[in-house]
């Protein structure tokens, strides 16, 4: 019986392999790609999709730069698209092969990192703010003071994500600076306040959705989609937009220069710019997507989600988190090392 099972399993495997007319290798952030969407794509085009996870832009860039990565598409954050282009790692898109390119929301068409969207197409975008368990802390959650100067109720229950760019951006804006500030007076305040706050933190950990849901910590620096996923599992979790300034980010799909499955890559990019498919991406990771018309296909609970609809009073407080270089990066590095020691 066992042998029969094994044999039929092998048969099934080879059957699906044989049916696939091609392959596509996607290199993306972990826990970020909707499995339903991938299944739909695979069934529509008979292409087998292999997804590999990365956990930071730097890891992804290093791996791609090393060459022969075998990936076709990568999903870096906004600031990194320019680096990929500058280093000659990606190719300019042939817009004629992307009929759905016109679906890109005008807001996301002429972006700072890619005017006219000739190098990258939108994947998802969101903000970086605070998730707080309102049962533990009933005060104002729309402030970075939650982690920069924690209220007594939250002491020892706060998590800060180990993402240098996002955290330093929040801290710098909290002290009155702009993202990538190289003003020594501001950066000194950033360092002093962060070091003073650190003993009141519990951890510097990535898995915020799971830990907020299970009350392992009561507050965290968080991305809005993670905050929403946590709230769906734990109704006490609320998302705050720091009034001192919060981070904005967008992840984008780029086509590698040494991609082997270029045709399938174009198919996939065009596929995810179809509004109902873009909505599937959002329905999984709980971030907005940047494709006009996808709102209609979103699950009901996302149309009214406070994590996705920025309150008017905070609408102009978001700043795009860019990649810092030079003196600004030196400051961030030194402070971050001291913080994590």
């Amino acid at each position: 019986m066992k042998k029969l099972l094994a044999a039929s399993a092998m048969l099934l495997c080879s059957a699906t392999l044989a049916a696939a007319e091609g392959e596509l290798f996607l290199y993306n952030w972990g826990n970020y790609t909707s499995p339903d969407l991938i299944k739909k794509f695979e069934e529509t085009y008979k292409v087998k999709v292999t997804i590999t996870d990365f956990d930071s832009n730097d890891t992804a860039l290093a791996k791609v730069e090393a060459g022969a990565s075998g990936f076709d598409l990568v999903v870096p954050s906004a600031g990194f698209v320019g680096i990929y282009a500058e280093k000659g790692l990606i190719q300019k898109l042939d817009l004629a092969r992307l009929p759905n390119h016109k679906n890109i929301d005008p807001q996301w068409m002429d972006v700072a990192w890619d005017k006219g969207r000739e190098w990258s197409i939108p994947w998802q975008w969101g903000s970086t703010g605070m998730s707080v368990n309102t049962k533990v802390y009933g005060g104002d959650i729309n402030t970075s003071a939650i982690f920069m100067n924690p209220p007594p109720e939250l002491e020892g229950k706060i998590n800060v994500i180990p993402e240098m760019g996002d955290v330093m951006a929040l801290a710098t804006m909290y002290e009155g600076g702009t993202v990538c500030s190289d003003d020594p007076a501001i950066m000194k305040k950033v360092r002093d306040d962060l070091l003073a706050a650190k003993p009141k933190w519990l951890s510097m950990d990535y898995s915020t959705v799971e830990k907020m849901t299970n009350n392992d910590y009561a507050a965290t620096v968080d991305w809005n989609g993670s905050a929403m996923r946590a709230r769906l599992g734990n109704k006490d979790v609320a998302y705050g937009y720091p009034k001192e300034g919060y981070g904005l980010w967008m992840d984008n799909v780029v086509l590698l220069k040494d991609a082997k499955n270029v045709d399938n890559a174009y198919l996939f990019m065009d596929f995810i710019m179809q509004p109902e498919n873009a909505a599937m991406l959002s329905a999984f990771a709980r971030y907005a997507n940047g494709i006009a018309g996808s709102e209609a296909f979103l699950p009901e609970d996302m149309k009214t989600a406070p994590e996705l609809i920025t309150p008017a009073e905070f609408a102009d407080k978001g700043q795009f988190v860019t990649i810092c270089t030079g003196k600004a990066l030196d400051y961030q590095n030194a402070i971050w090392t001291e913080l994590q020691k």
Partner: protein
Amino acid sequence: MSAAEQAQRAKTTRNAWLLVIPALVVLMAAAIGPLVLVLIYSFLTPGDYGNVVWSFSLDGWQKVVVERDIFDDSLHLAEAHLTIFWRSVSLSLVTTILSFFAGFPTAWFIATRPANQRAFWLFLITLPFWTNLLIRTFAINQIIRNEGLLNTILLHLGVISAPLQMTYTEGALLIGMVYVYLPLMVLPLYASLERFDLRLLEAAYDLYASRWQVLMRVVLPIARPGIVAGSILVFVPCLGAYVTPRILGGGKLMMLGNFIELQFGQGRNWPLGAAISIVLLVIVMAALLVYVRAINGEKRDG
């Protein structure tokens, strides 16, 4: 020795070398080559977006111990780095000692079972290796978390009234490390105790030795090679531990492995990361030298 014999011998030696060459090539390519690369990288300049620029610089090495204050440009000891070094070394030492105190009675217990039962107990010791390290570490986290098994039981029994904070503490890190590396201590200890002749104990007692004296002067000296080997096997991987501090330390308690990763990742300072990797290598080699000397000392004593 005749000329023919000499020629024969030379040929044998040559053949032996030829046979060794594939192994040497693999060693050179897979072990020494990357190490040389790491060494070279430690003398280069960091690139803006990670990677390196090919121009010579001592900054990487200088940064290991000295740090230029980013605000007033004064030089001072790189306190952050030294803290991480010290945490790595001290946590590894404590882990080694705890593993010894937990591992020695275990090994003694197994070695004193009837010969036909020992395989079963050894099998139990190796059981954890069947599961991936990452999964085992996450499992520990499940047990000690605020709403985890241990806290739930203690709360139900009324021993505590609020959950104990166990995750993300140095204690949690120690529990995790001892748990992971304990088998590496038990196995060599068992190997040295297995051949222990129990009649030696009787002889010692006959000569009016106390239990303490028997332990210190009979059992421990015989177990010494196992103790040294076990300690090295635990201490060395502990130094470079990455997964356990990352998961159980909550990212707040960095060890050398995590620090190196930071430099190659978000820190974008590959030369510093390379320099610290070399320092770690030197610490490991120092530990191994201690081991070799201890073993040699053994031979001289015997």
